């Protein structure tokens, strides 16, 4: 067991990778065996993530050096700096890992039925597992260049998956937009990694953070990284790809694309807090992140109101919700240099933003899955053509209600728990920001009331008389997410204490991250 925990950072990345290349071979023999392999792999990864998380909360940061004679040997003898690939998993990384593992397990179970009629499913599962590898890699790595590599893996497989149902023209368009955005973003990241390497001869995040000077070149690199990750997470001036890609991708993949965007958000936070940290001009960068968040929040929700395509509507809400996370963490970043403000409301704002990440992944994942179930049974995403589906799709409508109430921040659901943390702390930073955030939440509720009313309520329509409930594996996939949402709603205090505060502290305490690799 100790051995398993020691090696778990790499096993979480390597086991899906191994399974990804086994699936095409096993599909030739037996399709059923392949499905079992995919689900067992993801369940095992989930298990590894949980035992690793327990160990991290008890014993602190987990380091894994690839290829060394011991996993914790970060700096070999005769060397002054780390030279090997190092995975560094702290409370924030494992927090993102929990999100990725849970949502991708639910999405994979869901996809078993959803993709049943598609051809080339062996490639579908290979790409799905590769995308999971990319996400975990981005979250666990302690190396800037590795971050770029895993960003590419997640992007390319994500684009291929978004365009998977090539018989729909909008799927191809969505996938194409995603790959353009991702390649541009990844090249910009590579360019800034080059800037760091040219100046400091280092790639390791902890080693870079120790020596970074905040010169003009570092400022350029920071600007490039912020732009690239803002583009990938769908922040507002750079959000044009989000509705097209999310709406056209298969439902399970949309849920995973949300998590993949959040992995990019994690990378943004990691760069701002850990790589630059105290050298940064905190107030300026913090305000940039806050304004990005406010824009995303407001423009996202106003664009969502007129949508009649249910998945486009949800995609605009995804943009709007990521604004809350940026707002919360941005406030924390803006007051990072001021210990008093940080203690009174900064840490609380960051915790709210971070808590919102996991809540958003859960309820937005659930909502996208219900939208997929509606599409699977009715063959349309147009809200004007739906109606009265609550009569036949009882479970789906219950899941939709849970997701919709949660995203609108209605007590006692988990969306409320994280939003109240953001409102209260942001109000002390700047009251206007909190007021706008509340307004956005109200508009969200209005928009989801419309979506629920047009899809589920009303008399049974003649063309949907024979519509059946979604297949079992899709219900299980949605059920996993819904039950976690209910658990989070019942015990928000417990969750915040267990996983959210450690994650926020991990971002604030740059010194611990550095000393874990550099020693002393």
């Amino acid at each position, binding site marked *: 067991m100790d051995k398993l925990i020691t*090696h778990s950072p*790499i*096993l979480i990345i*390597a086991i899906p*990778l*191994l399974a990804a*290349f*086994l699936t*095409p*071979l096993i599909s*030739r023999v037996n399709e059923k065996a392949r499905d079992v392999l995919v689900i067992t792999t993801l369940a095992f990864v989930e298990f590894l993530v949980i035992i690793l998380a327990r160990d991290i909360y008890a014993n602190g940061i987990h380091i*894994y*050096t*690839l*290829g*060394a*004679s*011991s*996993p914790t040997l970060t700096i070999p003898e005769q060397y002054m700096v780390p030279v090997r*690939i190092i995975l560094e998993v702290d409370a924030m990384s494992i927090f993102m890992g929990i999100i990725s593992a849970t949502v991708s397990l639910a999405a994979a179970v869901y996809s078993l039925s959803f993709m049943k009629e598609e051809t080339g499913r062996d490639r579908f599962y290979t790409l799905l597992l590769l995308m999971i590898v990319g996400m975990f890699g981005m979250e666990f790595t302690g190396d800037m260049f590795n971050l770029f590599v895993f960003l590419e893996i997640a992007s390319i497989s994500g684009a291929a998956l978004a365009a998977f149902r090539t018989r729909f023209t909008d799927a191809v368009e969505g996938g194409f937009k995603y790959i353009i955005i991702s390649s541009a973003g990844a090249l910009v990241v590579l360019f800034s990694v080059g800037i760091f390497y040219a100046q400091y001869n280092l790639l390791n995040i902890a080693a870079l953070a120790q020596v970074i000077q905040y010169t003009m070149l570092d400022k350029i690199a920071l600007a490039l990284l912020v732009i690239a990750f803002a583009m990938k997470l769908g922040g507002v001036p750079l959000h044009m790809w989000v509705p097209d890609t999310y709406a056209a991708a298969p439902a399970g993949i949309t849920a995973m694309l949300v998590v993949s965007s959040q992995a990019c958000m994690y990378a943004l936070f990691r760069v701002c807090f850990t790589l630059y940290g105290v050298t940064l001009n905190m107030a300026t960068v913090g305000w940039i992140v806050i304004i990005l968040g406010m824009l995303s929040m407001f423009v996202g929700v106003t664009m969502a109101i007129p949508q009649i395509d249910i998945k486009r509507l949800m995609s605009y809400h995804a943009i709007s919700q990521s604004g809350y996370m940026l707002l919360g963490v941005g406030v924390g970043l803006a007051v990072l240099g001021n210990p008093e403000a940080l203690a009174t409301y900064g840490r609380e704002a960051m915790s709210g933003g971070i808590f919102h990440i996991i809540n958003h992944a859960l309820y937005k994942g659930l909502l996208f899955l219900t939208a997929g179930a509606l599409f699977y049974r009715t063959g349309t995403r147009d809200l004007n053509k739906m109606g009265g589906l609550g009569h036949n799709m009882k479970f789906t409508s219950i899941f939709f209600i849970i997701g919709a109430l949660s995203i609108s921040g209605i007590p006692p659901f988990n969306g409320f728990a994280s939003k109240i943390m953001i409102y209260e702390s942001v109000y002390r930073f700047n009251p206007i920001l909190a007021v706008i955030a509340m307004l956005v939440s109200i508009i969200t509720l209005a928009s989801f009331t419309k979506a629920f009313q047009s899809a589920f309520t009303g008399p049974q329509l003649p063309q949907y008389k024979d519509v059946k409930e979604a297949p079992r594996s899709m219900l299980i996939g949605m059920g996993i997410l819904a039950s976690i949402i209910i658990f989070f709603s019942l015990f928000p205090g417990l969750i915040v204490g267990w996983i959210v505060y450690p994650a926020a502290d991990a971002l604030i305490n740059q010194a611990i991250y550095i000393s874990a690799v550099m020693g002393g």
Partner: protein
Amino acid sequence: MSKIVRTMSSILSLFIFVYGSYIIMHGHLTPGGGFQGGAVFASGVALLIVAFGSQNLHKSLKEHHLSILESGGALIFIGLAFGGIATVFFYNFLVGSPIFGHIPPPGPNPGDIWTAGVIPFMNLAVGLKVIAGLSAILLVMALATTITEVEE
């Protein structure tokens, strides 16, 4: 293509294959490695596709066989990485052993192929994957262009 082109391509492609294999196998000593050698090797396949036509080549070279080879290459690579898991993932467990186990002398030396442990095997695995992957891409794209020509 004409008989002259076909004959010359058959002979030349052999040299290209040998050169590609050389780059793969010397990956740990000279510039290049699995990916570069695999790309050279696949350019030989491209030559054959141009000379003989994709339809003809498709009779003996099927893309689903190539995809098995590709998965195999990836699996060998990950398997080698897992081989070191007793110490650390990616640990070079062949150093000091009779297979590729020599430790090279420091400073300039003519190059000893029998060094570097698992790295030559990893180059081989990457080479296999790149050969299969690029050949499959070329073959499928060439086949697709012939289909549209027929339709028009």
